[in-house]
């Protein structure tokens, strides 16, 4: 419960900032809206069991190339770190959000986001994380983190973000 209290505050802030969710229990949605607000928990980033540490020190997201859902070597390194963290902090579950850049139709991007989220999830499972701790959701191109219309932005938007959702049974 103590743990829950610790992460609830930043996430609630994030949810408010996103203006997209008034229901504090739905952390998954809140996380999606504010996926860019990485600095929210900076104060506790030094604590290796904190979500902030997970976000910043380990890295909560992996990037993909155009139309792809295969994991690069770099992505695998990050996901390995995520897996290790999740194995150490068994009270947490996670929702993996799949995203796409705006260069594609809405429907195709939803499907592509689902692929990317699933690629990350499969990797974590292969490294020993229990499948019932990991949900996926696709946002397609609905929640870009960068808003310019250039490859520099697109590259950051083609991502899978692992959002910690707290110590529930899922």
């Amino acid at each position: 419960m103590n743990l829950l209290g610790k992460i609830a505050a930043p996430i609630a802030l994030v949810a408010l900032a996103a203006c997209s969710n008034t229901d504090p229990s739905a952390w998954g949605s809140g996380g999606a809206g504010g996926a860019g607000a990485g600095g929210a928990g900076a104060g506790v980033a030094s604590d290796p069991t904190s979500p902030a540490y997970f976000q910043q020190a380990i890295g909560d997201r992996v990037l993909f190339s155009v139309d792809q859902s295969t994991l690069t070597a770099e992505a695998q390194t990050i996901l390995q770190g995520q897996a290790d963290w999740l194995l150490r902090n068994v009270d947490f579950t996670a929702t993996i959000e799949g995203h796409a850049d705006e260069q594609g139709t809405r429907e195709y991007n939803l499907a592509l986001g689902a692929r990317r989220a699933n690629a990350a999830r499969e990797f974590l499972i292969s490294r020993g994380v229990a499948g019932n701790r990991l949900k996926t959701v696709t946002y397609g191109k609905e929640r870009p983190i960068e808003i310019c219309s250039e490859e520099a932005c697109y590259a950051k938007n083609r991502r899978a973000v692992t959002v910690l959702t707290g110590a529930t049974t899922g």
Partner: protein
Amino acid sequence: MMKFLTSLFLGTALLVAPAQAQNQPLRIEITEGVIEPLPFAAPNFVPDTPAAAEYSAQLARVVAADLSGTGLFREIGSDAYISQVSSFEAPVQFADWKAINAQALVTGAVNVSGNQLTVRFRIWDVFSGAELGNGLQFAGTTDGWRRMAHKVADQVYSRITGETGYFDSRVAFVSESGPKNQRRKRLAIMDYDGANVQYLTDSSAIVLAPRFSPTGDRVLYTSYESGTPRIYVLDVGRVQRRVLQSQEGTMSFAPRFSPDGQTVLYSLAQGGNTDLWSMNIGSGQSARLTNAPSIETAPSYSPDGSQIVFESDRSGTPQLYIMPARGGEARRISFGKGRYGTPVWSPRGDYIAFTKQNKGRFHIGVMRTDGSEERLLTASFLDEGPTWAPNGRVIMFTRETQGASGRSALYSVDISGRNLRPVRTPDGGSDPAWSPLQ
């Protein structure tokens, strides 16, 4: 055609030549014409009663705007009029309308009694002095006056062009506000011309891609209100919604009604793979239509319900395919350069509209159902999601502008590629879905 003409000519010549060599008609063939908007006049409707006066101009204005908006007609403004129509029953002064080159004329009268509104009108071919069809009367309530005007315009349109009109229709869409990374989306519905906007959801959850039922009384859409994309069906009249049955751990989106309104086609993502499914909307029983590791999405029925056109990247890039409505072997119909998506079968059955992405630009295009005669109608940074007017002659779609301040808006275009124009919405708009004629 030449054969027909030759035989006609010979036949007639043989029959007539000996009898009346001198006065046989001169025969010519016209094969070249012009394509331009037909000039018409729609003078204010004659008010039968003082209470009707306020509708006199409004009705005529909406009729004229409907017709002009098609790009097929051009209104001649009242400042050019030589004579006014002050009586609905008096003979039309055709010479006065010819003089200002009005080729079609709409005359009308309006009567108001209580909240009852009655509209009478006639349509005239000015240069031949003939009435097109019979006079017609519509009756309804005063607050539905815009619908009456749309109905009048539908009649004018169909009597002159020979096609069914589309003005008495509505559009469901997603109203958008806020910056790209925090966009607020609400489901909304409006008259096809942007009037009478009504919001059906709040913006607490992302909503996507509404689709009308064949009778226009229900709308399917995708919402994140549960945290994950699920399909909802909303009763437009009661503004009540329910989620379609869905399995835990799956995501569903891209729904579309079957022509009989009994079945919903949709995409279901499970374990990272997206396939096509159908569900009986009454029983909730679902069936899997495709089973491939590739992405299958954006399905649309043929008007007879026998086939489905959809988007798949099984070849490596997104392309269009057609398969039987119950699933089975699919044949690819798009072979041009680039990526194809969001195919929609025309209500007439003759064309498939689609989104195409090529060389960094997006296009709305149409092709025959066998993939031939592909024609791109638009080009911009991002055009997508075509929807057909109920008569299959006009397409509405989403256009999003480039960059950090990018905004989305609704546009419409004639299937000839002419008459591209924005559709006015209070905020940004995306994912339009055109209703059937009401």
